[in-house]
């Protein structure tokens, strides 16, 4: 791994230039603009290893742990350029979730063991949060961990576990005790090896008939007590603390941007821009996207200036996910009779993956806290509305 320089001392423009140039030269062309939002590890291993070797896999971890140590401004550039060049998403729960959690709350032994394995691609992680009975209401989770000598015995089920079928480890939220008044108490974070006896991973096909999330079953799974992160019963705040400023990226304009360019391509090919009714509908979508860019910049600036973001940032995710849906719906509308086709639609010299995007756009409004949950959070946290 190359020695890191102090990226934050560069100007934004310099950093953007350096990062863009290298990524453009090193991200394999056949991996650009993949249809899949969440490719499995093997599909993008080349890219993962290229980043790992360069030392650019982990943008925000401090440099002492092998990260780039980027501040928020530089991190935004990292994400923007990544999206602009059409690079594929890599399995990133180790980088985005487990690493920051261990760096902040892990023991020295845990950090020394797990962090290098994430950076090398040796250990791929997934996130074991949601359960059949605990989705939006995550704190009502029931997967039980019971102390037994030097171990915890885990029983229960997780669901919607993204990429569990290509992961070796899972960051697991478990129930260790129950407080009748406060559900958030009694939750414990464990690091669990998915190859342990008693673990079953069953992929679920999503709406696009791709397996990108799974059910994970735990039947008397023995987890060494040293795999506890933080304290028993006090895991809820740990899980929340690492969300940090990453929430801004759920509202980044890149997805609706791609979708709008596809809509434009299809509209050009089908002569829809000659239809004033279409142009009026298109104009609304175009301006929504333009204004999402302005709103994203409003929060990005807040992040650059203060280093943190408030709860209000989730307004971007609501707007972005709803816009993404509106654009893909319009694309199917102008496809007319052809809207039924599963495969890509011929458009000019290329093709438009109208159905692919339409199906994909259903997800963002649901995951990461559904838009209804987000609105309720905003109502309380920003407008101070009563319960």
């Amino acid at each position, binding site marked *: 791994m190359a020695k890191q320089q102090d990226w934050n001392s560069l100007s934004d423009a310099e950093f953007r230039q350096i990062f863009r140039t290298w990524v453009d030269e090193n991200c394999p062309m056949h991996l650009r603009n993949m249809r899949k939002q969440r490719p499995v590890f093997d599909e993008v291993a080349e890219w993962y290893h290229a980043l790992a070797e360069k030392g650019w896999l982990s943008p925000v971890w401090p440099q002492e742990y092998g990260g780039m140590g980027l501040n928020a401004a530089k991190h935004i550039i990292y994400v923007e350029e990544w999206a602009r060049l059409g690079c594929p998403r890599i399995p990133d729960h180790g980088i985005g979730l487990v690493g920051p959690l261990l760096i902040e709350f892990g023991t020295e032994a845990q950090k020394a063991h797990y962090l290098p394995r994430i950076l090398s691609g040796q250990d791929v992680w997934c996130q074991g949060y949601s359960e059949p009975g605990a989705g939006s209401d995550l704190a009502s989770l029931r997967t039980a961990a019971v102390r037994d000598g030097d171990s915890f015995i885990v029983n229960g089920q997780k669901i919607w576990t993204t990429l569990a079928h290509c992961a070796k480890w899972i960051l697991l939220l478990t129930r260790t005790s129950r407080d009748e008044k406060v559900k958030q108490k009694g939750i414990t974070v464990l690091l669990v090896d998915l190859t342990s006896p008693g673990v079953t991973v069953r992929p679920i096909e999503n709406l696009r008939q791709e397996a990108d999330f799974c059910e994970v079953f735990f039947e008397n799974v023995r987890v060494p007590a040293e795999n506890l992160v933080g304290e028993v019963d006090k895991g809820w705040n740990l899980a929340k603390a690492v969300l940090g400023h990453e929430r801004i990226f759920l509202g980044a304009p890149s997805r609706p941007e791609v979708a709008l360019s596809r809509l434009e391509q299809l509209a050009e090919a089908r002569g829809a*821009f000659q239809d004033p009714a279409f*142009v*009026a509908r*298109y*104009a*609304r979508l*175009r*301006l929504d996207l*333009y*204004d999402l*860019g*302005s*709103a994203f*910049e*409003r929060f990005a*600036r807040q992040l650059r200036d203060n280093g943190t973001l408030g709860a*209000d940032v989730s*307004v971007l995710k*609501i*707007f972005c996910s709803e816009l993404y849906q509106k654009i893909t719906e319009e694309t199917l509308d102008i496809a007319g009779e052809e809207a039924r086709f599963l495969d890509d639609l011929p458009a000019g010299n290329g093709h438009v993956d109208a159905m692919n995007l339409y199906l994909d756009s259903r997800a963002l409004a649901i995951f990461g806290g559904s838009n*209804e949950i987000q*609105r*309720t959070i*905003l*109502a309380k946290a*920003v*407008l*101070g*509305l*009563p*319960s």
Partner: protein
Amino acid sequence: MPEIILEDPDGTFAMLRDSVAAFAQRFDGARALRARRGAGKDLDRDIWSAMAEAGWLGLMLPEDLGGTGLGMSEQAILSEALGRALITEPLAQLSVFSGALLAGAEPGEERSRLAEGLISGSLVVSPVWQNTDGGPAAVAATVDAGGVTLSGTAGLVVAAASADVFLVAARANDGLLLVSVPAGSAGLTVSERPTVDGATLAELRFDSCHVAADQVLARGLLGSGLLDDAIQATQLTLAAELAGAGSKALEATVDYTKERVQFGKPIASFQAIQHRLVDMWSAAEFSCAAIVNALERLADEPGKPAALAVLAAKARAGDAAIDITRKAIHLYGAMGFTDECDIGLYMKRAVNLNATLGNPAQLRLQFVALERAA
């Protein structure tokens, strides 16, 4: 509540906001609007003079014309604050639009006189350049040795009964002229119609209305971009005023729904209402972000990027203020349907400002046409 966020190293923006807040203590916006409406007037000259004393009327006019020489950002902050306070005298047209025309006019005695009067509040200078349908005014100018003779009609003129001078864009053979026409000139007829927010818009009829040659303030208005610049500055001013009005209407509605108890609970505790309020807040946030973007594009990328950004900002702020105030009326329930409740005045004000210089649907089409033009 959402507001326009700009770096304010020397405190100018905070000072402008404070001065509007202090002004609103002296002149309650809603009360003034009702009084003006009740009296059937198009402008409250006392308030207008006080606005002049506050230094607001010449904010963007250059210092050599007696103005303050501040920029679009200061104007946006001022107008946002005026929108919040529901101070509805037509500053966007009478100060920003007329000011921009005068700033770009040819130097001369008449221009100096009008600028001075505009800034001091002693002259109400109203722009005349549109027809009632929003298109260009159909006023023809015949130039002869003795001056200019105007014939035709124009519409959408603010404060026409109070105006001392009209700045008329009139079509001559060699392009668009800007002519200063004193109110009460022979051959000029003014007929006002009420607007929804307790003001008026007038149609002006010119029947061989003659003015002296030295009243021609500028020539080739279109080629020089003077008219476009005035429109752009005024659109952004209106966007800021809409953002302020929308944000204040949201704030009032949040307060009201927290106090209004039904079924033993404040109605703001009900999820259906919370989600509507969040959508209103979101609209207000996006308006402010769009305005900041436009201010930055104007500073950094004048030309097409700035023009697009201003169109987007006016469209967004208009849509948002309309949406917020409509929902606000609904959330106030029957109270919202009364004239006594101020929330209705915010909705009416938003309707006026939203329709002025292009509604969102029109502005969006302009944006797309401009962006897609090679």
